[in-house]
């Protein structure tokens, strides 16, 4: 496929996704409301962004909005649309379709003049300042932003593609999410759905507990007598302990069985058996979320200098502590902040602002603030929420939670559920529209 074909495809995918994923919001927002790219900021430079997820899309957009037309931005992405992880648990309960959670890249190209390149990165040259693609082309940069998201370890027993097709993670939304939905549909009353939660850090701290709730709620109504067994590698619930303790012990009592501190030694996909320190557990569906690490491009290019798994960064700029001129944002970076889409959007803005300042010969903002926020469905029409504000601490050079500005909802509610949908629409608008 040549570049022109890709652009045609990309814009087609974008239009498809706009009507699906951005229903009711693209039509409602005018270009003036969304923001326009200024022409004469006096700043110039070439920025290449690897990865079009929440972090990559947002940084590309804000580099143009804040840097102006003199800052050329190229976004490299291998897919034609982004599949939102946020709300993807609702695909499991049949409340959302996967296509309703897809966001194309055409807005970024047409509204903000971002150059889209569909492809796979083969290598980064941090000294020569260029990115090589699998098709042999080379993109030079003044600043590179790497936002590949996460990758997974392989669980013992799940080495083959056949085993991986039976025991899904569905932790990168997309085909696997729909497949896991189909596995749920194939369950009989009185069945067992077993899921594993990896040790921290992993993407979306409340996400696995939320999944347990959404699946339990669906099973109760559609496959009576079924159970959800949650096998958590962590010593306890890692996020929204109030909401999820109540959900496990009251709302979904008798359906969800929660076990903290579980280590999985292997999974046998042919007999659907998990082997753990609790003994062997058989299930009709196993949803195993493996341990996480930074996306491959970070590991392969010497950027994973924190435990060999995550990219160390200076949180004033998100510049890599392993290579100058390269910034790593979102789930792949090692910071004190959670790995999640909402805060990745804010990390992207800090990074875009810093790059614009650096290109202009200025220093980065010395006291950035980020915020994390998310809503978690507990049932088909109630949700809880979680939030935290982080401020830069110059002593530890890390982002630290502001005392008193972090916490969860006092109780689940239908209002929270309605707010969740609004939040999702506005967050995706800020990142992709």
């Amino acid at each position, binding site marked *: 496929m040549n570049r022109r074909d890709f652009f045609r495809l990309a814009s087609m995918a974008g239009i498809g996704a706009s009507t699906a994923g951005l229903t009711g919001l693209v039509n409602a927002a005018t270009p003036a409301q969304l923001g326009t790219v200024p022409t004469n900021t*006096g700043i110039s430079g070439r920025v290449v962004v690897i990865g079009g997820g929440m972090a990559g899309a947002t940084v590309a957009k804000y580099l143009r909005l804040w840097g102006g037309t003199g800052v050329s931005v190229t976004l490299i992405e291998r897919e034609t649309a982004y599949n939102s992880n946020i709300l993807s648990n609702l695909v499991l309960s049949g409340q959302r379709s996967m296509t309703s959670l897809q966001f194309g890249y055409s807005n970024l190209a047409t509204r903000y003049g971002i150059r889209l390149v569909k492809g796979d990165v083969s290598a980064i040259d941090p000294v020569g300042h260029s990115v090589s693609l699998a098709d042999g082309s080379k993109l030079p940069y003044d600043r590179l932003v790497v936002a590949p998201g996460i990758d997974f370890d392989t669980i013992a027993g799940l080495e083959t593609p056949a085993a991986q097709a039976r025991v899904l993670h569905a932790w990168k939304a997309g085909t696997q999410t729909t497949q896991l939905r189909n596995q749920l549909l194939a369950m009989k009353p009185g069945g067992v759905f077993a899921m594993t939660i990896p040790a921290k850090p992993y993407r979306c701290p409340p996400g696995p507990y939320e999944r347990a709730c959404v699946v339990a709620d669906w099973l109760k109504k559609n496959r009576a007598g079924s159970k959800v067994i949650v096998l958590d590698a962590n010593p306890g619930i890692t996020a929204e302990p109030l909401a999820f303790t109540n959900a496990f012990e009251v709302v979904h009592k008798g359906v969800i069985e929660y076990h903290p501190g579980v280590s999985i030694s292997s999974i046998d996909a042919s007999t659907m058996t998990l082997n753990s320190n609790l003994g062997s557990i058989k299930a009709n569906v196993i949803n195993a979320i493996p341990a996480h690490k930074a996306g491959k491009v970070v590991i392969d290019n010497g950027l994973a*200098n924190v435990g060999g798994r995550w990219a160390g960064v200076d949180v004033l700029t998100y510049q890599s502590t392993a290579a100058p001129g390269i910034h790593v944002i979102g789930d792949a970076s090692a910071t004190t902040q959670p790995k999640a889409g*909402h805060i990745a959007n804010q990390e992207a803005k800090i990074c875009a*602002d810093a790059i614009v300042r650096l290109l*202009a010969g200025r220093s980065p*903002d010395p006291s950035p603030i980020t*915020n994390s926020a998310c809503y978690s469905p507990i049932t088909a029409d109630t949700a809880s929420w979680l939030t935290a504000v982080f401020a830069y601490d110059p002593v530890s050079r890390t982002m630290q939670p502001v005392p008193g500005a972090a916490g969860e909802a*006092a109780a689940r509610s239908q209002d929270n559920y309605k707010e969740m949908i609004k939040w999702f629409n*506005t967050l995706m608008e800020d990142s992709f529209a």
Partner: protein
Amino acid sequence: MNQKTMRLRVLLWLPFALASTCVTAQTTSAAPPAGRLLASNCFQCHGNNGKSNIGFERLAGSSSSEIYNELREMRSKVPPKMMDMHARGYSDAQIRLIADYLSKQR
């Protein structure tokens, strides 16, 4: 790469990293507007520059004192809703910067 090589590599890069964050080249561009980066924490729910009309309250164009006072009132609300919790994350000076920036958006 083992731990030691990695540490070495980090140390080798350090001077370059420092140099590239401490660039003090002459610039002809205008400084970023005060409060913009802080206010961008509002954009996820209230739209770019507070101009969204698809979700939560539109902030652009409200008076600075209105935004400032509302954020300050939110800090003491019990039990806090999500926005009340957010408001607790900023100092008075930071809230002032955010309010001033958003009030100038049209």
